């Protein structure tokens, strides 16, 4: 792995897919396109994303999650016991139908367009989840590579649909045991293959603390009835710590945000990371990749012993943050963190859901370029 400069610039993962790849994803899901043909299109898309990151001057690259339909349900095709179910198939089974309907109407999307990886049998890793993605990227870049994976809490929580999953796992916690095994197998292989950074995405943690008594905004979290947030957060801590236990070769991080499905900021969750602080500090990952480019996230907090992946641009706005603005954000973080603990990234991916990009590739590129320029000017 090449040595990283001060303020390494990276992304949170996803990049808008070209239209032909979106169409191919649909055909692939319908079994109307073979794996080989799909992979050819996806390879081209990944190469383009790598080129763009290179041109922008990013220090650590991702494959833009081009092969995935979204940031978490892509694992369905790679695991036994998991079925990708559209919400249309699940409407009958969800407990909180009123919340569901509200979310769908706010999103202005049909229920058939959103899929959830749902536990229907004994869960096992049948194929690698992201190792092939990493291998491909490795062949085409000399830069350090970040791989994103859905975090164990997100996986367990979203996969457990009581009406179908309880036949196999009595509780969500029981399912968590097999999710841990699955992710540990994956991490082991990713580290063997030289992943420089493994990032777990756990957006749903914010849902636990910001939505008490309010509309729920995470589709995957609305599947099951709500439990006590403190208990759920403890569960999340224990899951992640068991997943990463003993692994040291790659840098491990966790990304937590307040949702990335709408360009309307008012529909996304609001609140400081403060209620999560004592839990996040106990998670045995080196870096917290957090959103700070939106005022909804509140003030920058000090997380003891962690690196900060500082969100300096909003992936959902057309406005391109200026180099000066980005530098100011970094300087704010430097009042709390030593320079060697600060990494730079957008607040989230640019297309967490393949069919719902929050920006164009062009704007994403220009935002990254300004982050790089800000980093350069602060390094000298």
């Amino acid at each position, binding site marked *: 792995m090449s040595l990283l400069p001060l303020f390494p610039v990276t992304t949170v993962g996803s990049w808008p897919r070209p239209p032909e790849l*979106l*169409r191919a*994803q*649909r*055909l692939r899901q*319908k079994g109307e396109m073979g794996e080989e043909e799909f992979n050819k299109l996806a390879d081209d898309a990944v190469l383009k994303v790598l080129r763009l990151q290179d041109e922008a001057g990013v220090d650590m690259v991702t494959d833009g999650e081009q092969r995935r339909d979204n940031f978490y349900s892509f694992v369905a095709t790679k695991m036994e016991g998991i079925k990708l179910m*559209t919400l*249309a198939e699940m409407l009958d089974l969800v407990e909180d139908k*009123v919340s569901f309907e509200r979310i*769908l*109407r706010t999103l*202005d*999307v*049909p*229920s*058939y*367009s959103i899929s959830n990886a749902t536990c229907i049998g004994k869960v096992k890793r049948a194929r690698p989840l992201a190792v092939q993605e990493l291998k491909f990227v490795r062949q085409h870049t000399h830069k350090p590579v970040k791989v994103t994976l859905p975090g164990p809490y997100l996986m367990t929580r979203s996969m457990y649909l009581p009406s179908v999953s309880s036949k196999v796992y009595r509780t969500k916690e029981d399912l968590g045991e097999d999710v841990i095994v699955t992710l540990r197998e994956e991490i082991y292989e990713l580290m063997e293959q030289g992943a420089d950074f493994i990032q777990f995405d756990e957006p749903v943690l914010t849902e636990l603390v910001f939505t008490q008594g309010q509309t729920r905004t995470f589709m995957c979290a609305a599947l099951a009835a709500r439990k006590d947030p403190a208990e759920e957060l403890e569960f999340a801590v224990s899951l992640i710590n068991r997943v990463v236990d003993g692994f040291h070769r790659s840098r491990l991080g966790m990304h937590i945000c307040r949702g990335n499905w709408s360009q309307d900021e008012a529909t996304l969750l609001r609140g400081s990371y403060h209620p999560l602080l004592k839990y996040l500090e106990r998670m045995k990952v080196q870096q917290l990749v957090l959103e700070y480019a939106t005022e909804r996230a509140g003030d920058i907090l000090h997380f003891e012993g962690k690196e900060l992946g500082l969100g300096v641009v909003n992936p959902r706005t057309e406005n391109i943050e200026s180099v000066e603005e980005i530098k100011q954000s970094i300087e704010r973080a430097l009042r709390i963190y030593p320079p060697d603990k600060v990494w730079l990234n957008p607040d989230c991916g640019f297309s967490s859901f393949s*069919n719902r990009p929050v920006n164009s590739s062009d704007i994403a590129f220009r935002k990254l370029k300004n982050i790089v320029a800000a980093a350069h000017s602060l390094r000298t």
Partner: protein
Amino acid sequence: MDKVSWNLRIVAEEKEPATVYVRKHQFRVGVPLQFDPEYQHITALEYALGALSADVVGGLQAVSRRRRLKLYCIEAVVSGELNNPLTYLGVVGETGNPGLEHVNMTVYVSSTAKEEDIREIWGEMLQKSPLVQTLKPTVKLDFVLKVTA
């Protein structure tokens, strides 16, 4: 062609929702309309809106099959407004009528076919839809078609 008619029988016992008997089938319908989201039965108004939407969705399926154009999934989201629901309740001083005034419908269609071909099918369906054609002269129908991947 001789006039064809469709025959149903609706029976309501005291305080019970009505049962509709049609051919070999039957279903129950509650009061004409309700404001309480917890109300236990499906109201006549909800059935009417459901029927209108199912007419649109089913019509699209039928026309697309005939034209051999593949639609993976069709989904309609509907909301209806009455001219003045308070007149239904008999609120003193309220004017207007309790009739349907406005129906908003978004129809999502998932297909990898060309959008213009789907729009053509959409147009044909609207022309042929019995319920759309019934309501069109008196109810404001705002229908939007959205084609997704």
